[in-house]
C-alpha cells in the first residue's frame, strides 16, 4: 500500500473539505458522554473513602482546595446541565467555555482522589477544541431557533480541522500508551514477556465479563506464556499503529477495527470503560463525505415523502 505522506498527512487534511454533520454528531455524542460521566456516584464515593492516589495537577493549591469544597454540590450538577445544553446545541458558543471549565475542575477533583485517566483523558481536549468551532451549525436548537447563521457550505474546511484534531488526540492516547510500555528502553523487553497481560487476565478473571457470561477463560491463564507474549506484542503493535493517523487516512479503517478488537477483548477480560470513549473519538476517523451523503440522503427522503 503506497502513500505519500506529504499529500496525505493530517496537516494537509485539516485544509480539506469537512462535514458540518460529522462535527455535530461528535458534539452530541461527547455531550452525552459528559452527561453520563458527570452523573456517576464516584464523586460522592471519593469524598467518603481516603485519598490514596497521590496525583498532581497543574492548578494552584488554593484552587484545589476550593474545588474540593464545590465539586460535588456545584460542579457536578453544573457539568450535567451544561452537558444537556451541549447535546441539544442550545447557546452552544456561550456554554462551551463554562462547560470546559466545570468539567476540568470536576475531574481534577476526581483525579486527585482516584488515579485513573478514565474518562477525562479522552474528553478534555476534544471539548476544548469544540470551543473554537462551529459545532452547532447542524443538528442543534441554535440552528432551529435561528440563534446562529450556519455557513452555506456544509462541507467547509472550517468543519474539518477540529475533526482532524480529535483524530490526532486519539492517536496521541494510544501512541503514548505504547511508548509508556517500552520506555525506559531497558524495561521495555520486560513488558513483552507477557507477565502484565497474565497478571491482568489471571487475577481479573473472576471479575470479568468473560466469567460472568461464559464462565470459562479463553485459555489456561496459569501457563501458555507464548499467548501472553503475543497479546503484549499485539497491544503495543496496535497502539503504535495509531501513529499512522498522522501520516495518512488510508489506515483509518484498519486502526478502528484493531482498536475495537483490542478494547472488546479487554472488555471481556475485565478492563471496562475505554471502548465507549474510543468509539466516540473514532467518529473522527470516518471520512466526512460519508456524513454528508448520509444526511443529504435523509433530507431527500423526507422531502420526497
Amino acid at each position: 500500500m503506497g502513500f505519500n505522506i506529504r499529500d496525505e498527512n493530517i496537516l494537509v487534511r485539516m485544509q480539506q473539505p469537512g462535514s458540518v454533520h460529522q462535527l455535530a454528531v461528535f458534539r452530541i455524542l461527547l455531550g452525552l458522554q459528559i452527561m453520563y460521566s458527570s452523573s456517576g456516584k464516584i464523586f460522592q464515593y471519593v469524598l467518603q473513602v481516603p485519598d490514596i492516589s497521590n496525583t498532581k495537577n497543574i492548578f494552584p493549591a488554593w484552587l484545589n482546595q476550593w474545588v474540593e469544597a464545590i465539586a460535588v454540590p456545584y460542579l457536578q450538577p453544573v457539568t450535567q446541565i451544561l452537558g444537556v445544553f451541549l447535546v441539544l446545541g442550545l447557546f452552544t458558543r456561550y456554554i462551551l467555555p463554562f462547560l470546559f471549565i466545570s468539567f476540568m475542575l470536576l475531574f481534577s477533583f476526581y483525579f486527585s482522589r482516584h488515579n485513573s485517566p478514565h474518562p477525562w483523558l479522552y474528553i478534555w481536549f476534544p471539548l476544548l477544541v469544540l470551543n473554537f468551532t462551529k459545532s452547532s451549525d447542524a443538528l442543534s436548537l441554535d440552528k432551529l431557533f435561528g440563534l446562529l447563521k450556519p455557513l452555506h457550505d456544509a462541507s467547509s474546511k472550517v468543519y474539518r480541522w477540529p475533526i482532524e484534531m480529535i483524530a490526532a488526540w486519539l492517536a496521541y492516547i494510544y501512541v503514548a500508551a505504547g511508548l509508556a510500555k517500552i520506555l525506559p528502553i531497558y524495561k521495555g523487553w520486560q513488558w513483552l514477556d507477557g507477565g502484565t497481560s497474565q497478571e491482568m487476565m489471571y487475577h481479573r478473571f473472576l471479575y470479568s465479563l468473560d466469567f460472568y457470561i461464559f464462565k470459562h477463560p479463553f485459555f489456561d491463564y496459569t501457563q501458555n506464556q507464548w499467548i501472553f507474549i503475543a497479546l503484549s506484542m499485539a497491544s503495543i503493535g496496535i497502539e503504535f499503529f495509531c501513529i499512522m493517523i498522522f501520516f495518512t487516512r488510508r489506515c483509518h479503517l484498519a486502526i478502528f477495527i484493531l482498536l475495537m478488537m483490542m478494547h472488546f477483548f479487554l472488555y471481556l477480560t475485565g478492563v471496562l470503560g475505554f471502548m465507549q470513549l474510543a468509539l466516540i473519538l473514532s467518529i473522527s476517523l470516518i471520512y466526512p463525505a460519508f456524513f454528508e451523503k448520509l444526511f443529504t440522503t435523509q433530507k431527500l427522503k423526507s422531502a420526497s415523502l
Partner: protein
Amino acid sequence: MRWIKEIAFAFVALSLFMTILQTDHLFHYIQTIFLFKIFVLISIPVIVLWIVMSIRDYLRQRGIFYYCVYTFKSLSIPRVAKYVIVIVLLGNFMAIGFGKQRYPFYDVGMYRWPKEYKSRDKIVNEVKYYYLRPDGYKILELRKESSFLLAEHFGWGYSNDIAYATTYFHKGEKENFEYLSDAMKERGIDTLWVGVHSYNFETHEVTFDPDICHAITINKTADLCYGPIYIPTYQLEKCDGL
C-alpha cells in the same frame, strides 16, 4: 523516503532521550552499572546529533520539523486555538518525556511498570462480599454492576469508575466497605460477609466458599488481585479464637 528516515531517527533519538529523563537516580546508575554508563555514553552523541540536524534543517527551511511548523502556522484556524493546541502539545510532550503525569497532561502510563511472567497456581482465589438469602447466599459482584445488562443491585451512576474503585482500588479500605454496606442496607440487605470465590483452571470448576473464617485466612495468605479486602469487625469477632 527522506521523511521516513527523519521520523525514524527522531523516534530513536527521542526514545534514548526519554529513557535518560525517565531514569530515577540516573547518576547512581551511571556510577554503578557499567552497561548503563555505556548506554548513556552512546545515547548522548545520538541525541545531540539529532538536535543539531533538526536545528540545521529548520534554519535551512527544510525537513519535517520546519514543514510542520510552517504548515501549522498557515492553517486557517483561529489564532487562539493555535496557541492552545501548542500549549497542550508541549504539556503532553513533557508528560510523555518525563513519564510523569500532571493533570490534565498525561503520559498514558497506566500499565507502565511490567509484572514478571510466572507459573501460577491452578486455582485462583478472590475474596468477595456476599449476603445471605432464604435460599442460600448471593455474591455481590461489584464489577458486574457497572453493566446495564448484568447489574442486579445498583443502577444509574454506578459506572465503571466506581466499579473499579470498589472492586480493586479501595477494596482494603474500611470506608469502601461502609459505602457498600450503606448502599446495600438501602436495598434491604443488612449484613455483608466475605467469602472465597475460586476457579480451577485445570478442572474448570467454579466454587464459592461462604465459610467466613476460611475467608479471613485466604485474605491474609493468598495472592489476591489488588491485595486483601476489608473484612468487617463482626466477621473477625465471629471467628476470633477459632
